[in-house]
């Protein structure tokens, strides 16, 4: 069991709904997540499963139509959901930073890279001198292994390639925030050789600085290479949690198994049938386990009661009724 004070982020029973025309979308349904200091945590799942909603809730940047009827998000022992004004600004400036999927949209096209990084530093270090901000910005770019940082400071985003832009975003995120980096599909738009470079950079930087990482990805392969602990998410619920090696050696949840089988392997063997059906309608999610309608191992109880996360041993937790017997409900 890890010690209480090593926990950096602790999300308990987080529920998020979106108010839309004609009703409520019940997107997150009691999400639990915990990140220790210096830990690299992956959240894996397919489009629309609530990965981004979860991390946006941590940063309190959910869209205006979102409601959080239940749950707590503790960051360094304080509830993020209760923070306001100055506290929130500090949280975002020094505590948590985020890197988004599309670096082209994340950077402002009409300001130079230097202006944009210095802006971030200025907010985190008010009262400093412009010269210091500049030095910090150049240092941040240098740390991200970007060539010729002095010249890069004067460049506009359009002068850089996609991979370079994403590295700039990572440099910017880590320029001031040292506690937690949230990376939301940071390499999804990049080619595989560039993805490899960017992921290596992220890993090196977070390890050097002792920063915790939450990496959102739809790619199980990326999660396997980058993280210590993986959460598999489906339709707004965490369906499986395990140490990365354990998860890939011994996947248990039918959804995780389906996902793993769907991935074309370098070892060949053809392509399987995938997972039948599609993600449920959030306006009217299935009662019980949200995966039950697509699950080939579903039992009567699955469509009636939501499974808790059951302990499958060795810190491996599965939200599946098949593991209820003998297992102990953890949450």
């Amino acid at each position: 069991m890890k010690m209480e004070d090593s926990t950096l982020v602790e999300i308990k029973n987080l529920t998020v709904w979106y108010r839309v025309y004609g009703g409520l979308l019940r997107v997150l349904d009691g999400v639990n997540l915990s990140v220790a200091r210096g830990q690299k945590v992956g959240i894996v799942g397919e489009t629309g499963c609530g990965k981004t909603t979860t991390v946006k809730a941590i940063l309190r940047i959910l869209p205006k139509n979102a409601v959080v009827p239940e749950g707590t998000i503790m960051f360094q022992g304080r509830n993020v959901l209760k923070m306001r004004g100055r506290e929130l600004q500090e949280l975002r400036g020094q505590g948590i930073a985020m890197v988004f999927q599309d670096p082209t949209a994340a950077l402002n096209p009409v300001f130079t890279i230097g202006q944009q990084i210095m802006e971030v530093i200025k907010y985190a270090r008010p009262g400093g001198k412009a010269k210091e901000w500049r030095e910090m910005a150049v240092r941040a770019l240098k740390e991200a292994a970007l060539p010729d940082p002095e010249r890069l400071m004067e460049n506009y985003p359009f002068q850089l390639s996609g991979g370079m832009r994403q590295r700039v975003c990572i440099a910017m995120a880590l320029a001031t925030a040292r506690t937690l980096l949230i990376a939301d599909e940071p390499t999804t738009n990049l080619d595989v050789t560039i993805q490899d470079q960017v992921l290596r950079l992220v890993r090196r930087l977070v390890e050097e600085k002792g920063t915790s990482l939450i990496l959102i990805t739809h790619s199980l392969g990326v999660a396997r290479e980058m993280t210590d602990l993986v959460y598999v998410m489906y339709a707004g619920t965490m369906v499986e949690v395990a140490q990365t090696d354990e998860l890939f050696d011994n996947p248990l949840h039918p959804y995780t198994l389906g996902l793993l089988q769907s991935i074309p392997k370098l070892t060949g063997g053809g392509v399987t049938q995938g997972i039948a059906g599609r993600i449920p309608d959030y306006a009217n999610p299935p009662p019980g386990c949200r995966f039950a309608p697509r699950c080939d191992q579903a039992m009567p109880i699955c469509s009636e009661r939501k499974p808790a996360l059951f302990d499958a041993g060795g810190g491996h937790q599965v939200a599946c009724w098949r593991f209820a017997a003998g297992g102990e409900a953890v949450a």
Partner: protein
Amino acid sequence: MKRLPDDGLLEVRDLKKYFPTKRKGVFVRAVDGVSFRLKRGEVLGLVGESGSGKSTTAYTILGVYEPTAGQILFKGQDISTGLARRPLALKKEIQIVFQDPGTSLNPSRTIGQILGVPLAVHRIGTRAERQQRIAELLRLVELPVDFMYKYPRAIGGGERQMVAIARALATNPSLVVLDEPTSALDVSVQAKIINMLMKLQRELHLTYLFISHDLSLMRNVATRVAVMYLGKICEEASTPELFANPLHPYTQMLLSSIPVVSKAEEATKPKRIRSTGEIPSPVDVPPGCGFHPRCPFRTEACSREEPAMREVEEGHFVRCHLLGAGVPGDGQIH
């Protein structure tokens, strides 16, 4: 006119496609001397990163672009002209499935109308027969027949791609170009689409030119794989051979960069050759071998002289100086 061997369907010879830029005399050399052959019933995977010219190659074969130089032979007939000068009967034979079914299907037409377009263009059947053919096409891709009354927005992304596949098959083509047909989809949906494509390929004896950036996918669907870099094919081999014995440093870099999900897969990756640098702009192609600025094994010759395509083993072609005579050969790359 030269005839292809009986099983040859498509042959591309030294195909080039340059696009003009605003600067006079400066060209985007998108495709810069590509040659390959496609046999009937084969699935050729054309793999490369963005900017490698794989899509331009496909579009030039389709006739969307007129080639700058080179020849395209289809069933022995020279079709190296733009679409306007291509006979209608030939267009029927070569069809395409695009990457994003969200934009390749007309949002203001029903699925039935969308599937009816190729039938009308090629004047296939009477009105009633076309209606029947539309239903038949939907059944072919295992979609409910009443989908013909629905609009693309009313169905899921995977189902839309099934419609796009049905549309490509409407005219009974012999060659289908698949331009990253699953890269906009989640893996569980991708699996379904790929299964359908492979089933149709077997049952209808189709030939696929499969454009993709995903080598793991190609491992499982292609009979041969050609790897493109900066407008040229740098390595081509049968699928088992390419993955067991990748020889071009770029192929090795690509393979070693792929994140995988098991130790067994890890073991098939080439010895770690680290990915460095980025693909240069096709406007500013480096002299010599296009890959040399990123290549850890480059020699002085690589920046001076362009390597020729060489058959190192039967059916295994590589464009690299390292595999020439007198230079450390295959297996020596570390």
